[in-house]
């Protein structure tokens, strides 16, 4: 590690961290892990594969009603009046509600509550929710929707963020208290060091404009929620959500109920990817309808409605200017970013910060400025999608790095090595970096792809491209300020030999429940089959903030170790006492407990637990995790501050058909530093899934709004997620850096490995045909235009190509 002059806002000393949050990277017994590090099957794998898993829509309750939502056909309109009388009169209809029934605004970020469960005065995009009906069945509910009469005053609408800025008089969210706000949702400008001087001092300064088009999550399970109110007034909500805790809070706020009267449960979930991390209209609507009717109420959204719910990746227009010296060292980066937020804030405040804050590794640049503006438009609201806020700037920057490498005649991998930030250091914007396995990632993709022998030497049309990235393992920004733990765990252990873990963590398919099980089995020396996980039920489980920001393995994992170690001490202590040997001679592993110095003295875990239960009474423990104090010492400095960062490098092998513009992806090598792979099968699955998702949005997926403000194709036929035949060979190469603060050294693996996919394709195309693709998506039509503009491949036939096809 090279010592580097740190020019960030403030060098920081040793950060304080509670003892409960640091558990070391080693195995709890001896020097070998029993469960951790093995490819254990997911806790719910068989249930999902056999169809036994219970998803929200599988829930059927006696007397259950079905609800539907009326949506706005206008992109921007004022609601003059709503007449629900005809709908209410339809036989089979039990209730109709509108915005007036739930007038309190909310937002997942408490500083920007700009959403209503159902529109109150205005609608802001085609698909915005206006009213909800509960009826005997879905068909009756749908029929009732057609009988609701809404009188709209249609307003001019914005579909382009530049227009929205230029014409603030058409204001999407009125702000009488701040008349100058116009359509700006959030603006952040931060500068670290003297960028202008640094660019002056550079030998080469490159400037480029880049574009990310917008994409959505497309989880296979659509949003669904069921609500029931018990006779004594307790509201239970089952919902396909990845944030039970925030839904819990939002329900209490909007429905004006005490949190203690609400229970939120997340059943088995069919994918989320960030698309289920806001509270949604359907959750409030079924809850309110259940309260009004006294009957359980279910609402399942159609695929089209999932596209309107969106919260997908923000379209961004990005401008980067970077300086480099002849020796290959970067001097500074200057970024200006325009973010199309769609119609509501959602996580937009964080997105705006993330668009700049998360770029400052693994490549170091000593000076940095970013200026990001998020703007409201009359489109489905954008939000967090896997790699929240940072996939777009990462795309731009990693393509620019490739251009810089060329400008100073350096191999792009070498450029990244030369500017590597190092480990146990700080970034230019004051974030603390602990472990950093990026060099290992570069080595792996370089080796596996045959980079040295093949890059620049493949036949015309075929090429290799590299890109790197960094991502957070959770953040110490807890969305709402509080001093309580970010993750809590409770474990019950009893004479049956079973350990039951209660976690507020949301398993959204990423396998967090399996991680909990593995950790408890490891710590208590149990067979994993003797550990059961109860998750994401606010009545039963301690609070966890939810599945976002890649925080669950890191934070819940640490909390689980914390709780399990307390229990372990009770068990080993009790057995040691009974056997009259020192505690450190007691070994627990895979269902057995024995004396390390006398192997003949051995009992089963169950017997050991019984000894402990007899000695200590009923066994249980809680555990918690909170981040140390982190972040730069400036406003927003905690946003993006993570207890540990993961690192990734990709090499993509692409082939360009210069006649059609189609990019054929052959291979994608994904090397990812996840700290320690607690379950290599799950880590590899996340790496492959991430890379797949990134490649998909680079070459196929387009979340487009047409000239009428309508989603161009809100279906899985028209929104093209790649099928298996469209997916290249994905090679997951796990790199372990053993983070000092991660659970056994683990860091995140679910989002980081997405980032480099997009720029690596662009860089591979450059190697293949010498054309730079700076604007996503790389659809064949767009690529063909770029090839022709660069004079590559056959010429266009018609002298004049009509501009801009009507869409």
């Amino acid at each position, binding site marked *: 590690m090279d010592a580097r002059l740190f020019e960030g806002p403030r060098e920081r000393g040793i950060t304080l961290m509670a003892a409960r949050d640091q558990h070391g990277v080693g195995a709890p017994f001896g020097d070998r892990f029993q469960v951790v590090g093995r490819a254990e099957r997911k806790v719910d794998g068989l249930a999902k594969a056999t169809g036994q898993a219970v998803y929200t829509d599988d829930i059927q309750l006696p007397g259950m009603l079905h609800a539907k939502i009326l949506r706005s056909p206008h992109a921007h309109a004022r609601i003059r009046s709503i007449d629900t009388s005809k709908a209410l009169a339809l036989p089979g209809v039990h209730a109709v509600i509108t915005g007036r029934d739930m007038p309190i605004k909310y937002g997942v970020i408490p500083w920007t509550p700009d959403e209503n469960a159902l529109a109150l005065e205005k609608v802001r995009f085609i698909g915005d929710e206006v009213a909800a009906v509960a009826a005997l069945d879905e068909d009756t509910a749908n029929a009732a929707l057609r009988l609701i009469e809404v009188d709209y005053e249609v307003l001019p609408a914005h579909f382009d963020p530049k227009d929205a800025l230029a014409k603030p008089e058409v204001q999407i969210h009125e702000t009488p208290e701040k008349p100058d706000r116009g359509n700006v949702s959030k603006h952040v400008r931060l500068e670290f060091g003297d960028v202008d001087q640094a660019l002056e001092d550079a030998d080469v300064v490159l400037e480029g404009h880049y574009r990310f088009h917008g994409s959505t999550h497309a989880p296979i399970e*659509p949003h669904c929620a069921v609500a029931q109110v018990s006779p004594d007034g307790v509201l239970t909500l089952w919902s396909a959500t990845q944030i039970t805790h925030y839904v819990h809070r939002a329900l209490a706020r909007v429905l004006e109920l005490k949190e203690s009267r609400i229970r939120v449960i997340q059943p088995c979930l069919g994918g989320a990817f960030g698309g289920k991390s806001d509270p949604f209209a359907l959750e409030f609507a079924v809850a309110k309808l259940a309260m009004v009717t006294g009957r359980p109420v279910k609402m399942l959204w159609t695929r*089209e409605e999932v596209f309107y719910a969106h919260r997908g990746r923000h379209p961004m227009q990005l401008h980067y200017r970077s300086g480099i010296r002849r020796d290959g060292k970067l001097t500074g980066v200057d970024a200006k970013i325009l973010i199309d937020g769609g119609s509501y804030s959602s996580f937009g405040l964080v997105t705006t910060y993330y668009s700049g804050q998360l770029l400052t590794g693994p490549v170091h640049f000593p000076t940095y400025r970013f200026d990001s503006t998020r703007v409201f438009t009359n489109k489905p609201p954008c939000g967090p999608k896997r790699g929240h806020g940072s996939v777009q700037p990462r795309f731009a920057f990693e393509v620019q790095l490739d251009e810089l490498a060329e400008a100073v005649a350096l191999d792009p991998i070498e450029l990244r090595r030369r500017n590597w930030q190092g480990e146990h250091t700080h970034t230019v914007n004051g974030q603390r970096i602990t472990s950093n396995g990026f060099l290992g990632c570069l080595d792996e993709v370089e080796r596996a792809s045959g980079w040295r022998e093949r890059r620049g030497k493949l036949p015309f049309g075929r090429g290799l491209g590299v890109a790197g990235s960094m991502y957070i393992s959770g953040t110490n920004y807890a969305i709402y300020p509080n001093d309580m733990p970010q993750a809590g765990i409770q474990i019950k252990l009893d004479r049956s030999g079973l350990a039951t873990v209660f976690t507020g963590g949301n398993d959204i398919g990423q396998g967090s429940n399996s991680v909990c099980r593995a950790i408890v089995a490891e710590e208590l020396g149990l067979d994993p089959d003797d550990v059961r996980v109860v998750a994401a039920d606010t009545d039963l489980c301690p609070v966890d903030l939810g599945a976002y920001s890649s925080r669950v393995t890191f934070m819940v994992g640490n909390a689980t170790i914390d709780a399990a170690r307390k229990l372990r001490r009770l068990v080993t202590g009790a057995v040691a006492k009974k056997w009259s040997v020192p505690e450190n001679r007691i070994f627990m592993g895979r269902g057995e407990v024995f004396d390390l110095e006398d192997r003949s003295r051995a009992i089963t875990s169950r017997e050991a637990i019984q000894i402990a239960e007899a000695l200590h009474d009923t066994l249980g423990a809680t555990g918690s995790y909170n981040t140390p104090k982190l972040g730069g010492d400036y406003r927003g400095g905690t946003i993006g501050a993570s207890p540990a960062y993961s690192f990734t490098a990709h090499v993509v092998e692409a082939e360009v058909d210069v006649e059609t513009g*189609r990019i054929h992806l052959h291979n994608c090598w994904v090397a990812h530093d996840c700290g320690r792979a607690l379950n290599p099968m799950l880590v590899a699955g996340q790496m492959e899934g991430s890379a797949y998702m990134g490649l998909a949005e680079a070459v196929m997926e387009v979340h487009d709004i047409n000239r009428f403000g309508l989603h161009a194709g*809100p279906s899985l036929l028209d929104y*093209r997620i790649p*099928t298996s*035949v*469209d997916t290249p060979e994905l090679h997951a190469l796990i790199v372990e850096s053993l983070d000092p603060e991660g659970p056994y050294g683990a860091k995140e693996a679910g989002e980081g490995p997405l980032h480099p996919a997009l720029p690596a394709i662009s860089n591979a195309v450059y190697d293949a045909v010498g054309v730079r693709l700076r604007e996503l998506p790389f659809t*064949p039509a767009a690529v063909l235009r770029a090839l022709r503009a660069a004079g590559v491949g056959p010429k266009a036939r018609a002298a004049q190509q009509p501009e801009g096809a009507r869409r």
Partner: protein
Amino acid sequence: MLRLPKTRVAKPTTVAQAVALLVEHGEVAMPIAGGTDLLPNMKHGLFEPEVLVALGGIKELQRFELQTDGTLILGAGVSLDRIAADERVQRTAPALAQAAGLVAGPQLRRMGTLGGNVMLDTRCQWYNQTHFWRQALGYCLKKDGTVCHVVAGGKKCVAAASNDTAPTLMTLQATLVFEGRSGRREVAIDDLWHTDGIHNKKLGTDEILVEVRVPPRATGHRGAYGKLRERGSIDYPMLGVAARLDVGRDGAVEGADLVLVALQARPVRVRRAAELLIGVPSSGDNFAEAVAAVAEAAYAQAHPMPNIPGDHEWRREMVPVYVARTLHAAATGTGPVHHV
């Protein structure tokens, strides 16, 4: 999930019964085979039949024979996956087998039938959408509305014929056997089409397609199908190219045909293809030159419109590319032309 409107389903076991049901219920009845086109369309509110006459139980529609004279008889109810996998079809009508094998995805080919494919409704990005979506748009000419969103001020629907097998059947000079209230009739598939996106087939509401007859192939018959689409599976064609070459003993092209689909309301024949190819040796530079000339002719004739999703200018650029590739594939027996 979108709801399927409630309808009655009638299950005839003979063609005559099916026709009688269509006659009895008139306008409100529709035949249904695999349902892979009709059911999504009903969920979108594009068709609102009150009675579905299900053809799945009619044995006669499952006919699948290669007659001794070389005529291929394909019942309308034969599934696309069977056609694609059948050795007789692969041998005698390769373009058809290839096209059938590229329709939609595996599950849909198992349910979808040849008859349903020939009778497929035309498609358009402003039309194949939910009722909510179309209502927000204000509908269009083809269903419930008065304007076209593809051609500003257009008075005619230009939704695209999107059936992959249709152009191959045209190059194979297939005839269609229909049965209706006035008995059976045979129609050359070329004569089935109207250039009208609303109804692109000349057909009575009481008529059922019974079978497709592919006449004996010429000796030296070669065929191929090329399909442009975004993904390697599931997607409808953004352009389909069916090619036929009849190659004589001397290796020269004696007959040729080229038909494109997914451009306009009906499959379109490239008129100059035969003229440019006949008499040319089926390999070598002369062939390549002739193919290039055909590709240019196809380009000049084809004017994709922004009817189906995707960049229509790019679709136009792809016409000569796919025409050339498909003709070469036909000549060398290396079809289909497909990007995966």
